[in-house]
């Protein structure tokens, strides 16, 4: 596989690493309620940009790392991110041609699905969310999507990741 896609693997790895960092950095409570799931957004971007290369397996693996980092049930974020990758892979052709602000709505839907899956699983193991704030990160993700998209697109073009 490496010979078929020789360029820019490290760009993808670094972008995920930065996503992990942003997901963990302490923020004031008011902001951290809206802190988007950066890792999921980076995953959506790469699934959209390089669907042959980044897909469900990568999403699952990244999700598992997130589980370990957050001390969550092993497999919880893995499942949610695999589903996000699947949704993106099935719709990337339509989303890719849409303007940025319309893309943001699709991203909102993906992130909502992800949040609901994660909290559904949390509820099953005895941690039901007690208010509706748990959907706020998806809204934060939608607002910040255009920014992330532009940054990652420029990085992809600059480093010629393909």
């Amino acid at each position, binding site marked *: 596989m490496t010979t078929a896609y020789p360029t820019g693997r490290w760009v993808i790895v670094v972008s995920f690493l930065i996503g992990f960092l942003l997901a963990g950095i302490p923020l004031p409570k008011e902001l951290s309620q809206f802190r988007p799931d950066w890792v999921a957004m980076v995953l959506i971007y790469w699934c959209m940009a390089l669907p042959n290369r980044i897909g469900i397996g990568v999403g699952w693996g990244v999700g598992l790392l997130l589980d370990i980092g957050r001390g969550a*049930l092993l497999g919880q974020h893995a499942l949610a991110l695999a589903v996000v990758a699947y949704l993106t892979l099935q719709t990337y052709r339509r989303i890719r041609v849409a303007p940025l602000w319309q893309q943001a709505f699709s991203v909102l839907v993906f992130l909502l699905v992800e949040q609901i899956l994660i909290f559904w699983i949390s509820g099953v193991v005895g941690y039901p969310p007690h208010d509706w704030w748990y959907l706020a990160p998806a809204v934060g993700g939608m607002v910040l999507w255009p920014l992330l998209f532009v940054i990652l697109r420029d990085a992809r073009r600059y480093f010629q990741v393909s």
Partner: protein
Amino acid sequence: MATLKPSPRIRYLFAVNPTAVLRLGLWGVLSIALMTVDHRYQGLNDVRDILATAIYPFHYLVRLPADAGNWLSENLASRDALLAENAQLREKQVFLNVQLQKLTVLEAENRRLRSLLESAVNTPERVLIAELLAVDFDPYRHHILLNRGRRHGVYAGQPVLDQHGVIGQIIQADPLTATAILITDPNHALPIQINRTGVRTLAQGTGNFQELELPHIPNNEDVKIGDLLITSGMGGRFPRGYPVGTVTKVEFDPGSPFAHIVAKPVAQLDRIREVMLLEGELPAVKPEPGSAVAAVQMP
């Protein structure tokens, strides 16, 4: 022009990838299996151990900006501010020293009385200071990550306190870090006693940092707002007599057998930075693996 046949391009836009469904199914089944194993059995604890150690540097990396900010603000603080803080701390030290003198006398008296009564003397407990690794966890689980682990002598079930009172207990001790569950986690219950009257009950977490619930207190019990709650020493996890919270709400509902009582933890659980781990003489309770609350059996 008038044809209804979609152009190949449009069809391309709506193409579905059939192998993706299959792959999602496979990964989905794998994650469900993994979650079941992780939740029901403790077979994955070793794997978690190794992985937690592997990502340990990462937690430090995440902390770096916050630490750098603290370092900067400490180093760039003005001389006046430092002098003021110094004076304030000195004043506080004098105040604490006076209290400590009283305490020494009381402790001696207590020991004498206890020896008169021939009851067991409380051996002083040793304390291990741990720092919070400033990593945000799942906001709906009240777990914190500490920078001390098995290598420093931390064990699962160890009580965690701060300077005000009880915070929680260790649920998982990895080689270099440890995870603690807070007393406000919805899955945590702590055996307590009301200091004024000696009534024993449980303090259950609610998922809110400011609230503990006291179930199982009958309507005719003497409970007042402001009553101090202390650990009762039941359950063999927490030593007796550490402050837990103060009662903030008492509602007697004639229709229900128990009163609705809410307490506020004395420790400031949402702004913890340093905690103390008690190394007590407690009987080694073998915790039911993975479940921190197992030692605190519900009545």
